[in-house]
């Protein structure tokens, strides 16, 4: 809310010498936060005075322009009393006019310094100003010509132009709708600024009594429209200008002046907070009827939009049909125009929820709607309408018609019981009951009783409904800045949960492995899933769609972290960082299509069943881990060659995580997008698949701007963490000597090394301490379609030195089983 300070001070007195900053500081501390203090003349310094044009001579110039060589009477403002010679390029004035003159030494907005300078053959000492040059608007019609009675030459022109008028902009929270008015802000100044007094309520006025002579109004939905006041003026001069003060104030408040009749309704809304609607009375046919719209009804609103109405919308009708969306926006057919001479003034109180819904439904945000949906004082309809009539009469030459229509009565204010010590208990400050009562009365409440107070909130505070709401009023007036600082004493906590600790461990492990963590948005689109090469039936295509995504290309919640990390990696490569290794941990969203998550009651705790059903209705959201690496895993240099990343780096990254969690991961061949069909490992822990790793499919690399042979992995981190080994047993190991045996086995190229190793382990028996594949060879020596796997086996007994030949026997048994299970042949 932007509020001209002078307007506020029309309604409240502050002690002499109170600065604007003091007022806004106090308002900020009591809950109306200052956003800005603006004044149109803030950037103007130096002599800016009224001048009277004495002479002007038009002088055509070679460049085709005509300038005016003027002499201007600026009184004593120039120190000499002599007329000031000024060159002016505008032509919209004549000798005798009063103009705005800036003298040498003045500075205009934009740091434009004014001096005496030679131009067009004259010494021009100053400038005659336009609105634009003063930062007052974009008026191109030439210089400002002041009214003849604006003042005398040499007089400071700032007050005349309202240049020093300060406007304070305050942030208004939704519960303080009353402060969307000068009335409300003045009242806040009263309770916030020490010494403020003399509040003059603009909504407190003697209004003529209701009678039957006014425009007939029928309210069919009293719940939606509890109060409807109608007044009428005639003989209005549609060409009457809006007075300057009103234009300035409306403009400063951030609204656009339109015409006197419209400006008056806006002015009164800003002043009182009560939105007003004005109809061209001559276009209204018969009685006004307030009702809910019927399905399918239509209305073209003031903004020219034809709207299909909803049965929840409150409408105003006349004999011709619907003429307005009550409280939100008027209709075109009865709009006030440049020929309107009779105005029907509507000041009605509308149901806030209905206003909110209609505004949302039709996507209308308006100054009126903003107030109506937050709650307006229902008791000031008559006063507001009367004020409109007064201003139309005063400035538009209109005549107030007899007749005051008032339908309905403002709803009664609730009485709320508030414990006298509640503010003290809530705040932790020693606030007495007396002080509480004093504060509550200051904000307009009626308070009776003691111990338990019976509090009636003022009608402009529909937000005050609960006892605790009143404690806030007390505490903010006592001062939030006085709340003491006291640390509570929590019971001993249990620290981080194991899962939380392990997640940190995973992050540290990967960072230690050289991966950089990224955070991506979890939004995904079909094109991302296409880029991954996911087949049509891939479960990862079953995404949770957003109703209102920011972009249609990323309109769903992702089921995989890969698009995010691959995009990030591609971006790094694009930035010239060819060697990149990234990881991300985040939840993915896997729809369960389990139906609605119920809207439960709020007046009690939900049952365990209700809560379980709520959780069951949400999608599964497991925490995933994704890694990607491209370019070189280790760079080349004086120490040797670079090592490009390979599929094994992706598996190893996952293995570093499973190691950190105390888990063994096994890899088996799989064909899963987005991986290379021959270089994708399905990773399992204890036989349960936890994810995949390997080299990316070349097409996928290309789609994400990654070099060929980039690698990636994605695993279900929740699953890994849930299986993490908690209490590790201390190992027992033998101190007897080791016996080493090496074997080289030739198998078909398609036989997985893991199978060969498993057979060797099983065949070697208990004496086998470890087994390590130290070489893989393919080539002429083993023949087409074959490979040689060389293993180093270590044997040791826990309790004795192995006997001569014992290790060799175990080795032979291992080879024999490998031969049987995998067709392995020992290489000579």
């Amino acid at each position, binding site marked *: 809310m932007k509020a001209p300070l002078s307007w506020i001070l029309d309604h409240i007195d502050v002690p002499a010498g109170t600065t604007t900053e003091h007022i806004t500081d106090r308002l900020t501390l009591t809950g109306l936060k200052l956003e800005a203090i603006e004044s149109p003349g803030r950037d103007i310094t130096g002599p800016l005075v009224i001048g009277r044009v004495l002479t002007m001579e038009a002088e055509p110039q070679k460049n085709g322009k005509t300038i005016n060589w003027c002499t201007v009477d600026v009184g004593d403002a120039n120190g000499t009393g002599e007329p000031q010679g000024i060159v002016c390029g505008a032509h919209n004035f004549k000798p005798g006019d009063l103009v705005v003159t800036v003298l040498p030494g003045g500075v205009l907005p934009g740091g434009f310094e004014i001096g005496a300078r030679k131009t067009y053959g004259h010494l021009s000492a100053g400038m005659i100003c336009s609105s634009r040059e003063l930062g007052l608007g974009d008026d191109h019609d030439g210089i400002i010509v002041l009214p003849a009675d604006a003042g005398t030459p040499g007089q400071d022109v700032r007050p005349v132009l309202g240049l020093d008028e300060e406007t304070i902009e305050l942030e208004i929270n939704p519960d303080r709708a009353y402060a969307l008015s000068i009335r409300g802000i003045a009242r806040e100044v009263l309770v916030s600024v020490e010494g403020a007094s003399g509040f003059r309520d603009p909504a407190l006025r003697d209004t003529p009594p209701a009678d039957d002579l006014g425009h007939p109004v029928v309210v069919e939905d009293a719940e939606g429209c509890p109060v409807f006041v109608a007044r009428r003026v005639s003989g209005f001069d549609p060409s009457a200008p809006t007075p300057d003060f009103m234009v300035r104030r409306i403009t400063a408040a951030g609204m656009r002046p339109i015409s006197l009749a419209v400006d008056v309704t806006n002015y009164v809304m800003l002043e009182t907070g009560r939105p007003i609607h004005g109809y061209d009375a001559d276009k209204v046919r018969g009685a006004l009827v307030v009702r809910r719209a019927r399905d399918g009804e239509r209305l073209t609103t003031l903004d020219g939009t034809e709207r299909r109405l909803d049965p929840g919308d409150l409408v105003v009708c006349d004999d011709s049909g619907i003429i307005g969306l009550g409280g939100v926006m008027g209709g075109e057919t009865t709009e006030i125009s440049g020929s309107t001479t009779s105005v029907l003034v509507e000041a009605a109180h509308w149901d806030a929820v209905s206003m909110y819904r209609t505004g949302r439904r039709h996507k209308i945000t308006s100054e009126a709607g903003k107030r109506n949906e937050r709650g307006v004082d229902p008791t000031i309809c008559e006063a507001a309408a009367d004020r409109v009539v007064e201003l139309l009469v005063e400035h538009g030459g209109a005549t107030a018609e007899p007749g005051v229509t008032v339908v309905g009565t403002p709803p009664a204010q609730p009485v709320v019981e508030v414990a006298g010590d509640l503010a003290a208990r809530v705040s932790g400050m020693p606030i007495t009951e007396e002080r509480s009562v004093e504060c509550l009365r200051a904000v307009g409440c009626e308070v009776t009783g003691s111990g338990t107070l019976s509090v009636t909130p003022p009608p402009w505070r529909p937000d005050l409904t*609960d006892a605790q709401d009143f404690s806030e009023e007390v505490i903010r007036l006592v001062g939030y800045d006085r709340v003491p600082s006291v640390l509570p004493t929590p019971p001993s906590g249990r620290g981080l949960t194991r899962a939380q600790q392990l997640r940190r461990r995973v992050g540290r492990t990967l960072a230690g492995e*050289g991966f950089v963590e990224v955070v991506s948005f979890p939004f995904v689109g079909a094109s991302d899933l296409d880029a991954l090469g996911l087949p049509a039936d891939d479960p990862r295509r079953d995404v949770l769609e957003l109703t209102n995504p920011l972009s249609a290309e990323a309109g769903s919640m992702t089921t995989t972290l890969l698009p995010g990390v691959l995009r990030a990696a591609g971006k790094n490569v694009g930035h010239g960082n060819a060697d990149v290794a990234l990881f991300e941990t985040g939840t993915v969203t896997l729809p369960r299509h389990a139906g609605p998550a119920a*809207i439960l009651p709020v007046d009690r705790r939900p049952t365990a069943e209700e809560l379980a059903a709520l959780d069951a209705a949400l999608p599964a959201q497991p925490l995933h881990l994704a890694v990607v690496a491209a370019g070189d895993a280790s760079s080349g240099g004086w120490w040797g060659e670079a090592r490009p990343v390979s599929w094994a780096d992706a598996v190893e990254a996952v293995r570093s995580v499973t190691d950190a969690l105390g888990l063994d991961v096994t890899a088996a061949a799989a064909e899963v997008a987005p991986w290379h069909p021959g270089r994708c490992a399905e990773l399992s822990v204890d036989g349960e698949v936890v994810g995949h790793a390997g080299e990316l499919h070349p097409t996928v690399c290309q789609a994400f701007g990654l070099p060929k042979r980039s690698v990636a992995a994605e695993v279900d981190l929740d699953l890994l963490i849930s299986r993490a080994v908690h209490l590790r047993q201390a190992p027992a190991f033998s101190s007897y000597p080791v016996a080493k045996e090496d074997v080289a086995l030739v198998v078909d190229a398609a036989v997985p090394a893991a199978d060969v190793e498993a057979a060797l382990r099983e065949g070697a028996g208990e004496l086998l301490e470890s087994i390590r594949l130290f070489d893989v060879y393919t080539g002429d020596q083993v023949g087409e379609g074959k490979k040689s796997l060389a293993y180093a086996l270590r044997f040791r007994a826990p309790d004795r030195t192995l006997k001569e030949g014992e290790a060799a026997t175990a080795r032979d048994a291992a080879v024999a089983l490998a031969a049987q299970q995998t067709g392995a042949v020992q290489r000579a």
Partner: protein
Amino acid sequence: MSGPNTDYDPVEVTPLKADQVEAMREAALAAIADAADLDALKQVRLDHNGDRSPLALANREIGALPPQARKEAGQRVGQARGAINQALAARQAVLEAEHEQRMLAEETVDVSLPTTRRRRGSRHPLTLQSELIADLFVAMGYEVAEGPVVEAEWLNFDALNLGPDHPARTMQDTFWTEPAEDHVVLRTQTSPVQARTMLTRKPPIYVVCPGRVFRTDEYDATHSPMFHQVEGLVVDEGITMAHLKGTLDHFASQLFGDGITTRFRPSYFPFTEPSAEVDVRCFVCRGVDSASCRTCRGEGWIEWGGCGVVNPRVLIACGVDPEVYSGFAFGMGIDRSFMFRHGLEDLRPLFEGDVRFSSAFGTEI
């Protein structure tokens, strides 16, 4: 070679004469001293102490001496050989030391060569910031609570006193999911975690909930559709705004430096009543000569978050008896806190995944 002298004849054996032995010894010692390297010394050892060295040959002649002369000659030769062995060992040690020194000198490398053979990893600064904040509260005895980001509408709004027609719902531009009748949203705040906590635990409750939240804000330098929040919730007997103030003052001083405090301004959140905006004292200018301060833009204070006393309506919806318990709650942007703590003016690098950004923070902040 002379045969054994068994007759005790006083035979003269030239090589065993004292001056001869002495000469052999001198020659050997001189050769040892002259040996310039280990190879030369090896030759000297062969020449002067080997099986065919003069002294070894002389030693064999001892048997040719009469018995009474053998002892003396034996001692003479033995002493000479002892001296030579000693000299050899000493020289060997010297030469070995010299050799080692030379070898080490030859093996000198340029230790200023780059050793950046492995990639350096790092964690995301927001992860680190979240953990740092969680740790501050864990140190006070709090626990870290969690909940889903795709959340039930009821938990994100209704249970928090944001009914279906609450104007405050428009303050939070919510991502809704399909189908609309499922009433599922992307959480707009971490507050549903607070509701979940109250629904599943009995007071006293002291928790913080860091996490991702979503709003339909277009992505620019200061807005992001996804950002991170940390909320705190305390529900216990006799909890007041003073406890809230104490907790946030402590939090501020831990995160931004000793002596940094907070300021409350009245505000509005449906979840709390009374509600406050919390400003933190600018940790750069500390409110002194703030006019030129870039961090707080001349305010002396930085808007940090919202807080308040838990609205009794929320306690009721979550099954906590407001007659017995009261509580406070607060919420801050982690991203925002990070931004002004570390002087980041445009938030987008947080979500772009450029390694140059995260790497600057390493694994701790």
